[in-house]
Protein backbone atom coordinates (compact mmCIF):
# COMPACT_ATOMS: atom_id res chain seq x y z
CA UNK A 1 0.00 0.00 0.00
CA UNK A 2 1.23 3.45 -0.83
CA UNK A 3 0.87 6.54 1.27
CA UNK A 4 -1.83 7.81 -1.07
CA UNK A 5 -3.75 4.57 -0.68
CA UNK A 6 -3.40 4.57 3.10
CA UNK A 7 -4.55 8.11 3.70
CA UNK A 8 -8.20 7.61 2.69
CA UNK A 9 -8.37 4.56 4.96
CA UNK A 10 -7.06 6.56 7.90
CA UNK A 11 -9.48 9.36 7.15
CA UNK A 12 -12.35 6.94 7.02
CA UNK A 13 -11.39 5.48 10.40
CA UNK A 14 -11.07 8.92 11.96
CA UNK A 15 -14.40 9.90 10.52
CA UNK A 16 -15.84 6.77 12.09
CA UNK A 17 -14.96 7.86 15.62
CA UNK A 18 -15.51 11.55 15.06
CA UNK A 19 -18.17 11.89 12.36
CA UNK A 20 -18.37 15.67 12.43
CA UNK A 21 -14.67 16.29 11.73
CA UNK A 22 -12.87 16.70 8.43
CA UNK A 23 -9.73 14.56 8.63
CA UNK A 24 -8.92 15.43 4.99
CA UNK A 25 -7.91 18.88 6.12
CA UNK A 26 -5.15 17.52 8.38
CA UNK A 27 -1.67 18.66 7.45
CA UNK A 28 1.10 16.06 7.74
CA UNK A 29 2.50 17.49 10.97
CA UNK A 30 -0.75 18.50 12.66
CA UNK A 31 -1.42 16.78 15.94
CA UNK A 32 -4.37 14.60 14.99
CA UNK A 33 -6.02 14.63 18.41
CA UNK A 34 -5.80 18.32 19.13
CA UNK A 35 -6.58 19.39 15.57
CA UNK A 36 -9.69 17.25 15.33
CA UNK A 37 -10.50 17.67 19.04
CA UNK A 38 -10.62 13.96 19.70
CA UNK A 39 -10.56 12.97 23.37
CA UNK A 40 -8.79 9.99 24.90
CA UNK A 41 -11.82 7.77 24.64
CA UNK A 42 -12.36 8.44 20.96
CA UNK A 43 -8.65 8.11 20.25
CA UNK A 44 -8.70 4.70 21.87
CA UNK A 45 -11.58 3.82 19.56
CA UNK A 46 -9.50 5.01 16.62
CA UNK A 47 -6.61 2.79 17.65
CA UNK A 48 -9.00 -0.13 18.04
CA UNK A 49 -10.24 0.54 14.51
CA UNK A 50 -6.69 0.93 13.21
CA UNK A 51 -5.64 -2.36 14.74
CA UNK A 52 -8.65 -4.13 13.30
CA UNK A 53 -8.12 -2.60 9.87
CA UNK A 54 -4.46 -3.50 9.61
CA UNK A 55 -4.49 -6.59 11.76
CA UNK A 56 -1.96 -5.30 14.22
CA UNK A 57 -1.60 -4.62 17.91
CA UNK A 58 -0.58 -1.13 18.94
CA UNK A 59 0.82 -1.17 22.49
CA UNK A 60 0.06 1.79 24.71
CA UNK A 61 3.68 2.92 24.79
CA UNK A 62 3.51 3.48 21.02
CA UNK A 63 0.64 5.98 21.24
CA UNK A 64 3.20 8.76 21.26
CA UNK A 65 4.51 7.62 17.89
CA UNK A 66 1.25 8.14 16.08
CA UNK A 67 0.36 11.69 16.97
CA UNK A 68 0.50 13.16 13.46
CA UNK A 69 -0.44 11.93 10.02
CA UNK A 70 3.23 11.92 9.14
CA UNK A 71 4.31 9.80 12.13
CA UNK A 72 1.25 7.59 11.84
CA UNK A 73 2.05 6.71 8.23
CA UNK A 74 5.67 6.05 9.14
CA UNK A 75 4.52 3.85 12.00
CA UNK A 76 2.18 1.89 9.73
CA UNK A 77 4.95 1.34 7.12
CA UNK A 78 7.33 0.20 9.81
CA UNK A 79 4.74 -2.24 11.20
CA UNK A 80 4.05 -3.52 7.70
CA UNK A 81 7.74 -4.20 7.12
CA UNK A 82 7.98 -6.19 10.32
CA UNK A 83 5.02 -8.37 9.47
CA UNK A 84 6.15 -8.96 5.89
Amino acid sequence: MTEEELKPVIFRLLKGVAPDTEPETLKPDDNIRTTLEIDSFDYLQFIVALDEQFGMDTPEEDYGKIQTLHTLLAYLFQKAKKTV
Partner: protein
Amino acid sequence: MIEFRMPSLGADMEAGTLVEWLVKPGDAVRRGDVIALVDTQKGLFDIEVFEDGTVENLVLKEGAKVPVGTVMAILNGTKEVVQKATKLEEAGAAREMPREVIAPVQTPPEIKASPLARRIAKDLSIDLSIIKGTGEEGAITKADVENAAAEKKQTPEQEMRAETAQQPSSPKEKTAATADSIRMAVAAAMSRANREIPHYYLETKIDMRKALAWLAEANKQRSVKQRLLPVALYIKAVAKAAAEVPQLNAYWEDGLQLKEAINIGVVISLRTGGILIPALRDAEKKSIDEIMEWINEIIPRARSLNLRSSDITDTTITLTSLAEGSAETVYGVIYPPQVALVGLGSISEQPWAENGMLDVRPVLVATLAADHRASDGQIGSRFLMAFKHYLQEPESL
Protein backbone atom coordinates in the same frame (compact mmCIF):
# COMPACT_ATOMS: atom_id res chain seq x y z
CA MET B 1 -53.16 -0.11 39.46
CA ILE B 2 -49.83 1.51 38.71
CA GLU B 3 -49.59 5.01 37.39
CA PHE B 4 -46.75 5.30 34.95
CA ARG B 5 -45.58 8.88 35.03
CA MET B 6 -43.34 11.12 32.98
CA PRO B 7 -39.98 10.49 34.64
CA SER B 8 -37.58 13.20 35.65
CA LEU B 9 -34.39 12.69 33.70
CA GLY B 10 -32.40 15.10 35.80
CA ALA B 11 -32.81 18.45 37.46
CA ASP B 12 -32.71 20.17 34.11
CA MET B 13 -35.87 18.49 32.87
CA GLU B 14 -39.24 20.12 33.44
CA ALA B 15 -41.32 18.48 30.77
CA GLY B 16 -41.09 15.83 28.11
CA THR B 17 -42.87 15.09 24.85
CA LEU B 18 -44.17 11.60 24.28
CA VAL B 19 -42.92 10.72 20.83
CA GLU B 20 -44.02 7.15 20.57
CA TRP B 21 -45.60 4.38 22.59
CA LEU B 22 -43.79 1.08 22.09
CA VAL B 23 -46.57 -0.88 23.80
CA LYS B 24 -50.32 -1.03 23.47
CA PRO B 25 -53.10 -1.74 25.94
CA GLY B 26 -53.12 -5.38 26.91
CA ASP B 27 -49.37 -5.85 26.44
CA ALA B 28 -47.51 -7.50 29.25
CA VAL B 29 -44.44 -5.59 30.37
CA ARG B 30 -41.53 -6.51 32.59
CA ARG B 31 -39.44 -4.27 34.75
CA GLY B 32 -36.76 -2.68 32.57
CA ASP B 33 -38.70 -2.91 29.31
CA VAL B 34 -38.55 0.19 27.18
CA ILE B 35 -42.15 1.18 26.67
CA ALA B 36 -41.98 4.71 25.30
CA LEU B 37 -39.80 7.24 23.53
CA VAL B 38 -39.75 10.62 25.16
CA ASP B 39 -38.20 13.74 23.74
CA THR B 40 -36.60 16.24 26.07
CA GLN B 41 -34.35 19.21 25.61
CA LYS B 42 -31.53 16.73 26.01
CA GLY B 43 -32.77 14.53 23.25
CA LEU B 44 -34.78 11.40 22.73
CA PHE B 45 -34.86 8.85 25.54
CA ASP B 46 -36.02 5.29 25.84
CA ILE B 47 -38.28 5.19 28.85
CA GLU B 48 -38.29 2.03 30.89
CA VAL B 49 -41.01 0.65 33.10
CA PHE B 50 -40.19 -0.18 36.71
CA GLU B 51 -42.80 -2.80 37.44
CA ASP B 52 -44.01 -6.00 35.93
CA GLY B 53 -47.59 -5.86 34.77
CA THR B 54 -50.03 -5.31 31.97
CA VAL B 55 -50.69 -2.11 30.10
CA GLU B 56 -54.19 -1.05 30.95
CA ASN B 57 -54.58 2.31 29.33
CA LEU B 58 -52.31 4.69 27.46
CA VAL B 59 -53.45 7.98 28.89
CA LEU B 60 -51.08 10.27 27.07
CA LYS B 61 -51.35 10.77 23.34
CA GLU B 62 -48.28 10.67 21.17
CA GLY B 63 -47.01 14.16 20.50
CA ALA B 64 -48.22 15.54 23.83
CA LYS B 65 -45.79 17.52 25.96
CA VAL B 66 -46.41 17.21 29.67
CA PRO B 67 -44.63 18.20 32.87
CA VAL B 68 -42.56 15.70 34.81
CA GLY B 69 -44.82 13.60 37.02
CA THR B 70 -47.81 13.57 34.69
CA VAL B 71 -49.50 10.19 34.41
CA MET B 72 -48.67 8.71 31.01
CA ALA B 73 -50.23 5.30 31.31
CA ILE B 74 -52.04 3.02 33.71
CA LEU B 75 -50.58 -0.41 34.29
CA ASN B 76 -51.93 -3.33 36.21
CA GLY B 77 -49.34 -4.87 38.44
CA THR B 78 -48.91 -8.62 38.03
CA LYS B 79 -49.78 -9.19 41.65
CA GLU B 80 -52.99 -7.27 41.29
CA VAL B 81 -54.14 -9.25 38.31
CA VAL B 82 -53.29 -12.52 40.00
CA GLN B 83 -55.10 -11.50 43.15
CA LYS B 84 -58.20 -10.53 41.30
CA ALA B 85 -58.11 -13.72 39.31
CA THR B 86 -57.79 -15.78 42.44
CA LYS B 87 -60.67 -14.03 44.08
CA LEU B 88 -62.90 -14.54 41.10
CA GLU B 89 -61.99 -18.16 40.95
CA GLU B 90 -62.71 -18.58 44.62
CA ALA B 91 -66.11 -17.13 44.05
CA GLY B 92 -66.54 -19.51 41.16
CA ALA B 93 -67.52 -16.66 38.97
CA ALA B 94 -65.00 -17.25 36.23
CA ARG B 95 -62.47 -19.84 35.25
CA GLU B 96 -60.48 -17.71 32.92
CA MET B 97 -58.24 -14.87 33.82
CA PRO B 98 -60.24 -11.77 33.32
CA ARG B 99 -58.88 -10.13 30.24
CA GLU B 100 -59.65 -6.75 31.54
CA VAL B 101 -59.94 -5.32 34.94
CA ILE B 102 -62.11 -2.29 35.52
CA ALA B 103 -60.77 0.57 33.50
CA PRO B 104 -59.95 3.52 35.68
CA VAL B 105 -61.99 6.60 34.96
CA GLN B 106 -59.72 9.24 33.52
CA THR B 107 -60.87 12.77 34.02
CA PRO B 108 -58.95 14.93 31.59
CA PRO B 109 -56.89 17.48 33.48
CA GLU B 110 -58.62 20.84 33.47
CA ILE B 111 -56.79 23.39 31.37
CA LYS B 112 -57.04 26.95 32.56
CA ALA B 113 -56.81 29.29 29.62
CA SER B 114 -58.18 32.71 28.85
CA PRO B 115 -61.03 32.87 26.34
CA LEU B 116 -58.72 34.69 23.94
CA ALA B 117 -55.96 32.12 24.36
CA ARG B 118 -58.44 29.35 23.61
CA ARG B 119 -59.65 31.11 20.52
CA ILE B 120 -56.14 31.72 19.18
CA ALA B 121 -55.04 28.19 20.01
CA LYS B 122 -58.00 26.88 18.06
CA ASP B 123 -57.21 29.10 15.09
CA LEU B 124 -53.56 28.03 15.08
CA SER B 125 -54.32 24.38 15.89
CA ILE B 126 -52.21 24.48 19.00
CA ASP B 127 -52.75 21.92 21.71
CA LEU B 128 -53.34 23.82 24.94
CA SER B 129 -52.38 20.80 27.01
CA ILE B 130 -48.74 21.22 26.03
CA ILE B 131 -48.55 24.87 27.06
CA LYS B 132 -47.48 26.07 30.46
CA GLY B 133 -49.55 29.10 31.44
CA THR B 134 -47.99 32.23 32.86
CA GLY B 135 -51.21 34.06 33.66
CA GLU B 136 -53.15 34.30 36.87
CA GLU B 137 -53.15 30.95 38.67
CA GLY B 138 -51.16 29.48 35.83
CA ALA B 139 -53.80 30.28 33.23
CA ILE B 140 -52.66 30.12 29.64
CA THR B 141 -52.68 33.56 28.05
CA LYS B 142 -52.52 34.86 24.51
CA ALA B 143 -48.76 35.38 24.88
CA ASP B 144 -48.27 31.75 25.96
CA VAL B 145 -50.13 30.47 22.91
CA GLU B 146 -48.26 32.81 20.60
CA ASN B 147 -44.94 31.71 22.08
CA ALA B 148 -45.91 28.10 21.57
CA ALA B 149 -46.91 28.88 18.01
CA ALA B 150 -43.60 30.62 17.38
CA GLU B 151 -41.71 27.66 18.79
CA LYS B 152 -43.69 25.34 16.62
CA LYS B 153 -42.80 27.39 13.59
CA GLN B 154 -39.13 27.63 14.48
CA THR B 155 -38.71 23.90 14.83
CA PRO B 156 -40.47 22.26 11.94
CA GLU B 157 -38.35 19.18 12.58
CA GLN B 158 -40.33 18.68 15.74
CA GLU B 159 -43.48 18.47 13.74
CA MET B 160 -41.74 16.02 11.49
CA ARG B 161 -40.89 13.96 14.49
CA ALA B 162 -44.45 14.04 15.67
CA GLU B 163 -45.49 12.89 12.24
CA THR B 164 -43.00 10.09 12.08
CA ALA B 165 -44.12 9.08 15.51
CA GLN B 166 -47.48 8.26 14.04
CA GLN B 167 -45.92 5.35 12.22
CA PRO B 168 -44.73 2.85 14.78
CA SER B 169 -42.21 1.38 12.36
CA SER B 170 -40.47 4.66 11.73
CA PRO B 171 -36.78 4.71 12.60
CA LYS B 172 -35.91 6.54 15.71
CA GLU B 173 -34.51 9.93 15.04
CA LYS B 174 -31.31 10.20 16.93
CA THR B 175 -30.20 13.75 16.65
CA ALA B 176 -33.42 15.29 17.78
CA ALA B 177 -31.92 17.46 20.44
CA THR B 178 -29.79 20.24 19.16
CA ALA B 179 -26.63 21.25 20.95
CA ASP B 180 -28.36 24.48 21.78
CA SER B 181 -31.35 22.91 23.43
CA ILE B 182 -29.13 20.60 25.48
CA ARG B 183 -26.99 23.50 26.51
CA MET B 184 -30.04 25.55 27.45
CA ALA B 185 -31.38 22.70 29.58
CA VAL B 186 -28.06 22.35 31.35
CA ALA B 187 -27.79 26.09 31.76
CA ALA B 188 -31.21 26.22 33.41
CA ALA B 189 -30.17 23.59 35.93
CA MET B 190 -26.87 25.33 36.53
CA SER B 191 -28.57 28.69 37.03
CA ARG B 192 -30.74 27.07 39.63
CA ALA B 193 -27.67 25.52 41.24
CA ASN B 194 -25.87 28.82 41.41
CA ARG B 195 -28.95 30.49 42.80
CA GLU B 196 -29.84 27.93 45.43
CA ILE B 197 -26.68 26.10 46.39
CA PRO B 198 -24.09 27.81 48.58
CA HIS B 199 -21.07 26.25 46.88
CA TYR B 200 -17.70 25.91 48.48
CA TYR B 201 -14.60 24.67 46.69
CA LEU B 202 -11.57 22.67 47.74
CA GLU B 203 -8.61 21.77 45.64
CA THR B 204 -5.70 19.37 45.86
CA LYS B 205 -2.84 18.30 43.60
CA ILE B 206 -2.30 14.63 43.07
CA ASP B 207 0.92 13.00 41.92
CA MET B 208 -0.23 10.62 39.23
CA ARG B 209 3.10 8.90 38.59
CA LYS B 210 2.13 5.69 40.33
CA ALA B 211 -1.38 5.63 38.91
CA LEU B 212 -0.19 6.13 35.35
CA ALA B 213 2.51 3.51 35.76
CA TRP B 214 -0.07 1.13 37.15
CA LEU B 215 -2.33 1.81 34.16
CA ALA B 216 0.53 1.32 31.67
CA GLU B 217 1.39 -1.97 33.30
CA ALA B 218 -2.21 -3.09 33.33
CA ASN B 219 -2.72 -2.11 29.70
CA LYS B 220 0.33 -4.08 28.55
CA GLN B 221 -1.53 -7.25 29.31
CA ARG B 222 -4.73 -6.16 27.63
CA SER B 223 -5.89 -6.10 24.07
CA VAL B 224 -6.56 -2.65 22.70
CA LYS B 225 -10.25 -3.09 23.29
CA GLN B 226 -9.77 -3.86 26.96
CA ARG B 227 -7.35 -1.08 27.69
CA LEU B 228 -8.10 1.18 30.59
CA LEU B 229 -8.35 4.93 30.53
CA PRO B 230 -7.50 7.05 33.58
CA VAL B 231 -11.18 7.97 33.91
CA ALA B 232 -11.95 4.41 35.01
CA LEU B 233 -9.58 4.91 37.94
CA TYR B 234 -11.14 8.27 38.68
CA ILE B 235 -14.63 6.83 38.85
CA LYS B 236 -13.48 4.03 41.12
CA ALA B 237 -11.67 6.47 43.39
CA VAL B 238 -14.71 8.73 43.60
CA ALA B 239 -16.85 5.72 44.49
CA LYS B 240 -14.51 4.65 47.27
CA ALA B 241 -14.19 8.17 48.62
CA ALA B 242 -17.95 8.61 48.54
CA ALA B 243 -18.38 5.40 50.50
CA GLU B 244 -16.00 6.77 53.11
CA VAL B 245 -17.65 10.18 53.29
CA PRO B 246 -21.36 9.48 52.77
CA GLN B 247 -22.38 13.08 53.46
CA LEU B 248 -21.33 13.95 49.93
CA ASN B 249 -23.24 11.09 48.32
CA ALA B 250 -26.60 12.65 48.99
CA TYR B 251 -29.47 14.83 47.90
CA TRP B 252 -30.51 18.14 49.38
CA GLU B 253 -34.29 18.07 49.22
CA ASP B 254 -35.93 19.56 52.29
CA GLY B 255 -32.76 18.72 54.15
CA LEU B 256 -29.95 16.26 53.70
CA GLN B 257 -30.86 12.81 52.44
CA LEU B 258 -27.97 10.40 52.41
CA LYS B 259 -28.10 7.92 49.54
CA GLU B 260 -27.18 4.31 50.01
CA ALA B 261 -26.36 3.55 46.40
CA ILE B 262 -23.41 5.37 44.89
CA ASN B 263 -24.46 6.31 41.37
CA ILE B 264 -21.73 8.40 39.83
CA GLY B 265 -22.75 10.75 37.05
CA VAL B 266 -19.97 11.17 34.52
CA VAL B 267 -20.05 14.31 32.42
CA ILE B 268 -19.75 13.50 28.74
CA SER B 269 -19.28 16.38 26.39
CA LEU B 270 -20.92 16.11 23.02
CA ARG B 271 -18.88 16.91 19.95
CA THR B 272 -21.49 19.41 18.83
CA GLY B 273 -21.51 21.14 22.20
CA GLY B 274 -23.49 20.54 25.35
CA ILE B 275 -23.09 17.78 27.90
CA LEU B 276 -24.92 14.67 29.02
CA ILE B 277 -24.41 13.02 32.39
CA PRO B 278 -25.14 9.30 32.42
CA ALA B 279 -24.62 7.59 35.76
CA LEU B 280 -22.79 4.41 36.64
CA ARG B 281 -25.07 2.72 39.15
CA ASP B 282 -23.66 1.14 42.29
CA ALA B 283 -20.20 2.25 41.25
CA GLU B 284 -18.63 1.11 44.53
CA LYS B 285 -19.52 -2.48 43.68
CA LYS B 286 -17.93 -2.39 40.22
CA SER B 287 -14.41 -3.49 39.36
CA ILE B 288 -12.22 -1.25 37.27
CA ASP B 289 -12.77 -3.49 34.28
CA GLU B 290 -16.52 -3.30 34.73
CA ILE B 291 -16.27 0.46 34.95
CA MET B 292 -14.24 0.55 31.73
CA GLU B 293 -16.82 -1.66 30.04
CA TRP B 294 -19.51 0.78 31.09
CA ILE B 295 -17.49 3.67 29.68
CA ASN B 296 -16.99 1.86 26.39
CA GLU B 297 -20.67 1.21 26.18
CA ILE B 298 -22.08 4.50 27.43
CA ILE B 299 -19.96 7.09 25.61
CA PRO B 300 -21.00 6.09 22.09
CA ARG B 301 -24.63 5.90 23.22
CA ALA B 302 -24.45 9.30 24.86
CA ARG B 303 -22.77 10.86 21.86
CA SER B 304 -25.41 9.46 19.54
CA LEU B 305 -28.09 10.76 21.95
CA ASN B 306 -29.26 7.25 22.58
CA LEU B 307 -29.55 7.11 26.34
CA ARG B 308 -32.30 5.45 28.32
CA SER B 309 -34.16 6.92 31.23
CA SER B 310 -32.35 4.66 33.67
CA ASP B 311 -28.99 5.88 32.37
CA ILE B 312 -29.50 9.38 33.65
CA THR B 313 -31.67 9.06 36.73
CA ASP B 314 -30.82 8.69 40.40
CA THR B 315 -27.33 10.16 40.10
CA THR B 316 -25.95 10.77 43.59
CA ILE B 317 -22.63 12.50 42.85
CA THR B 318 -21.11 13.84 39.66
CA LEU B 319 -17.63 13.63 38.20
CA THR B 320 -16.35 15.89 35.47
CA SER B 321 -13.00 15.13 33.97
CA LEU B 322 -11.46 17.31 31.29
CA ALA B 323 -9.89 15.76 28.24
CA GLU B 324 -6.13 15.47 27.94
CA GLY B 325 -4.48 18.65 26.83
CA SER B 326 -7.25 20.77 28.33
CA ALA B 327 -7.14 23.14 31.25
CA GLU B 328 -5.45 21.89 34.41
CA THR B 329 -8.21 22.82 36.82
CA VAL B 330 -11.99 22.78 36.67
CA TYR B 331 -14.37 24.22 39.25
CA GLY B 332 -17.73 22.61 38.69
CA VAL B 333 -21.29 23.59 39.43
CA ILE B 334 -23.24 21.09 41.49
CA TYR B 335 -26.12 19.34 39.78
CA PRO B 336 -29.15 19.75 42.03
CA PRO B 337 -30.37 18.01 44.11
CA GLN B 338 -26.92 16.46 44.49
CA VAL B 339 -24.57 18.03 47.01
CA ALA B 340 -21.14 17.49 45.49
CA LEU B 341 -19.24 17.45 42.24
CA VAL B 342 -15.68 16.33 41.64
CA GLY B 343 -13.75 18.24 38.99
CA LEU B 344 -10.59 16.87 37.44
CA GLY B 345 -8.35 18.80 35.09
CA SER B 346 -6.03 17.28 32.56
CA ILE B 347 -2.78 15.77 33.81
CA SER B 348 0.22 17.98 33.25
CA GLU B 349 3.88 17.72 34.14
CA GLN B 350 4.74 19.96 37.03
CA PRO B 351 7.61 20.54 39.44
CA TRP B 352 6.95 18.49 42.54
CA ALA B 353 8.61 18.98 45.92
CA GLU B 354 8.76 15.91 48.09
CA ASN B 355 11.03 14.98 50.96
CA GLY B 356 13.09 18.10 50.39
CA MET B 357 13.73 17.19 46.78
CA LEU B 358 12.39 18.66 43.59
CA ASP B 359 11.17 16.40 40.80
CA VAL B 360 8.93 16.59 37.76
CA ARG B 361 5.72 14.61 38.09
CA PRO B 362 2.47 14.14 36.15
CA VAL B 363 0.06 16.10 38.27
CA LEU B 364 -3.72 15.96 38.42
CA VAL B 365 -5.53 18.89 40.01
CA ALA B 366 -8.69 17.67 41.71
CA THR B 367 -11.37 20.03 42.96
CA LEU B 368 -14.47 19.42 44.97
CA ALA B 369 -17.53 21.64 44.69
CA ALA B 370 -19.82 20.93 47.60
CA ASP B 371 -23.06 22.26 49.06
CA HIS B 372 -22.48 24.15 52.28
CA ARG B 373 -25.95 23.26 53.50
CA ALA B 374 -25.00 19.61 53.39
CA SER B 375 -21.38 19.62 54.48
CA ASP B 376 -18.51 21.88 55.39
CA GLY B 377 -14.87 22.16 54.45
CA GLN B 378 -13.75 19.54 56.92
CA ILE B 379 -16.00 16.88 55.46
CA GLY B 380 -15.19 17.99 51.93
CA SER B 381 -11.52 17.82 52.68
CA ARG B 382 -11.87 14.29 54.06
CA PHE B 383 -13.46 13.29 50.78
CA LEU B 384 -10.81 14.91 48.64
CA MET B 385 -7.97 13.42 50.71
CA ALA B 386 -9.54 9.97 50.43
CA PHE B 387 -9.83 10.43 46.66
CA LYS B 388 -6.17 11.49 46.52
CA HIS B 389 -5.11 8.54 48.63
CA TYR B 390 -6.78 6.05 46.30
CA LEU B 391 -5.21 7.55 43.20
CA GLN B 392 -1.81 7.56 44.83
CA GLU B 393 -2.23 3.94 45.80
CA PRO B 394 -3.85 2.58 42.63
CA GLU B 395 -3.39 -1.01 43.71
CA SER B 396 -5.80 -0.27 46.55
CA LEU B 397 -8.52 0.29 43.97
